[in-house]
């Protein structure tokens, strides 16, 4: 088991390193792309360009620039923004993390509850109208663009029905949990529901498939033979075993979302999280911030991948030999 964890960690570090190189190359070595021209602005004369290039170290060879950026990012932790001169990258990211975590954690609770409920009900009521209805709901959830759903929610809660039904909905924005827990939840309620709507559908589909498969297993027949109630068989036996693949799926999605995949939701609801920070830095092409955000995101995804793999290996010894 220890061997497996070790091997998995080495692989994770390798993937992270490759991603950092890849991102660096995308932004600094794509043919025809000149970061200096962006910093200096349009129509800058050659002298200014040369000065900018020297000032930002853009005239040095690419491997050295990569090394320098990584050194500033991880060793000195003083990488600064290209656009807001003097603004440090790492504190900006750290400041944005709680917002993203709040959004994703709340949404995760909602989508897990909804997904498990809808998936189990659909599996248990197979053959009735409830099953295809639940699954159709799931497909619709997957097919709606999340940012558009957010806009529609904004339209209803902030404008159309704001004077009546939704008069209690606060304006867009974020209030930190430590400042005011009630306001925190109120501000995040609709972002949570919007993000959860997308994932609840996916999870309901997966849960349904897994539960149906489990219901065909021998141990379920044994449980029936023992005279257990259908509900007990469903929840205690079938659902419980179906949870293993769900947990691994959840780990991956959660990691990706915390890493910034919730970008669209954050942008639409004006939440100053990591996704929003990435988006803003992309808008004004603030390369150090982009590098920091993408690496941070990749870190979470790779971490989630590794944790899931190790958990899987802990649950199923056969995986360790693969």
């Amino acid at each position: 088991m220890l061997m497996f964890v070790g091997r998995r960690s080495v692989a994770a570090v390798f993937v992270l390193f490759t991603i950092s190189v890849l991102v660096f190359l995308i932004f600094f070595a794509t043919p025809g792309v000149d970061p200096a021209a962006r910093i200096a602005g349009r129509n800058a004369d050659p002298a200014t360009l040369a000065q900018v290039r020297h000032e930002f170290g853009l005239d040095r060879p690419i491997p050295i620039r990569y090394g320098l950026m990584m050194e500033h990012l991880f060793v000195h932790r003083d990488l600064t923004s290209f656009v807001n001169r003097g603004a440090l990258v790492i504190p900006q990211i750290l400041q944005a993390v709680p917002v993203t975590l709040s959004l994703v954690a709340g949404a995760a609770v909602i989508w897990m509850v909804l997904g498990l409920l809808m998936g189990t009900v659909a599996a248990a009521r197979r053959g009735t109208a409830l099953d295809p209805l639940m699954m159709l709901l799931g497909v619709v959830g997957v097919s709606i663009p999340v940012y558009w759903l957010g806009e529609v929610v904004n339209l209803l809660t902030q404008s159309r029905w704001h004077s009546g039904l939704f008069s209690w909905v606060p304006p867009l924005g974020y209030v930190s949990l430590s400042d005011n827990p009630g306001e925190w939840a109120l501000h995040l309620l609709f972002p949570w529901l919007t993000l959860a709507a997308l994932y609840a559908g996916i999870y309901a589909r997966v849960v349904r498939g897994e539960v149906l498969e489990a219901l065909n297993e021998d141990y379920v027949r044994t449980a029936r033979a023992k005279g257990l109630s259908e509900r007990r068989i469903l929840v205690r036996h079938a659902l419980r075993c179906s949870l293993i693949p769900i947990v691994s799926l959840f780990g991956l999605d959660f990691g990706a979302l915390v890493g910034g995949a919730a970008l669209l939701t954050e942008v639409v609801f004006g939440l100053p999280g990591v996704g929003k920070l990435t988006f803003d830095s992309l808008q004004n092409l603030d390369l150090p911030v982009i590098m920091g955000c993408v690496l941070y995101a990749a870190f979470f995804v790779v971490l989630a991948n590794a944790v899931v793999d190790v958990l899987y290996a802990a649950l199923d010894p056969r995986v360790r030999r693969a």
Partner: protein
Amino acid sequence: MSSDASVAGPAPASTERARTVRPSAGPWRTALASLRRDRVAMVSLAVFLLVVLACVLAPVFEHHVAHTDAFTSNISGTTVVHGRRVPVLTPSSTGLGLGVTPIGPTWDLHHYFLGADGQGRDVMARLLFGGRNSLLIGVVSAVIACGLATVLGVAAGYFGGVLDAILSRLFDVVWAFPVYLLAISLSVVLLTSGLTVGPVHIEGDSLWLPILIIAVIYVPYVARPLRGQVLTLRGRDFIQAGVGNGATDLRILRKDVLPNVMPTVLVFLPLMTALNMLTESALSFLSIGVQPPNASWGTIINDGLGLLYTRPTVTLAPGLMIAVTAVALNLLGDGVRSALDPKARLRGAA
């Protein structure tokens, strides 16, 4: 040697006895027949084709029905509502009085059916033209992604060794990179400079840019399951029999491997088209996908943001089109899957 050595298909459907009674339908025809009996899948296919047809006919609508131009702004234009001539854009009467309020939906196909956008352009005409691009990008990038994934996944699974190691690591890296961040990074960089590969140069505002970017980022989604499938196929008796008979790799790949992975690819195709369309719309919504003067459903939603509270149709209509098309494609994908029944699964993206 196993008896199904020469059978090329997902399942050796026919037996000796059946063959003497009547010719076997074959796996492909069986699947097609079962797909045609699937009412949900057929309705979905019809809806999708209807959307495609409407968008293909966009120029007809623009010139002969609405008599407008979807791409030039019409700031001081007028139109007719209930027999009265009214301006398309009226100066805003609320707040600072800056900005304009475009005309809302008239529900009259000849005069701004869905109203106008902030520049006085017909939303309905733009919706149809935008749909052409959204559908084109979705379909073409899905075909490219599935094609690339088939080549790479099959090669990695079949040849193994160093090639497999390199390709698998490559898939791992792209897989670990959050798709939206990868797409956004690539788009931001390539939009300003375009892409030059050898003698080919793609301009920054070309539709090929989002097509290629989206195709590349989703390759591992299809290639990984395909690689696994080929890996198990590789050990099966009928492949081993082919090797034993001295068949070349190319022949085994063409006659035995490819026919067995094709069903999986076919299942992925509609699902990937839906996913790619959603990704394109998200990129365009962030204004780093389709570039003006071109439009797509995503860019129209973006255009409508400033008008969300006054003229929500500009935002609502393209979103509904995306949702309807994606639902149709996903249901069609489900139908294709249950007709062919390979174990394919697709992860979603936020």
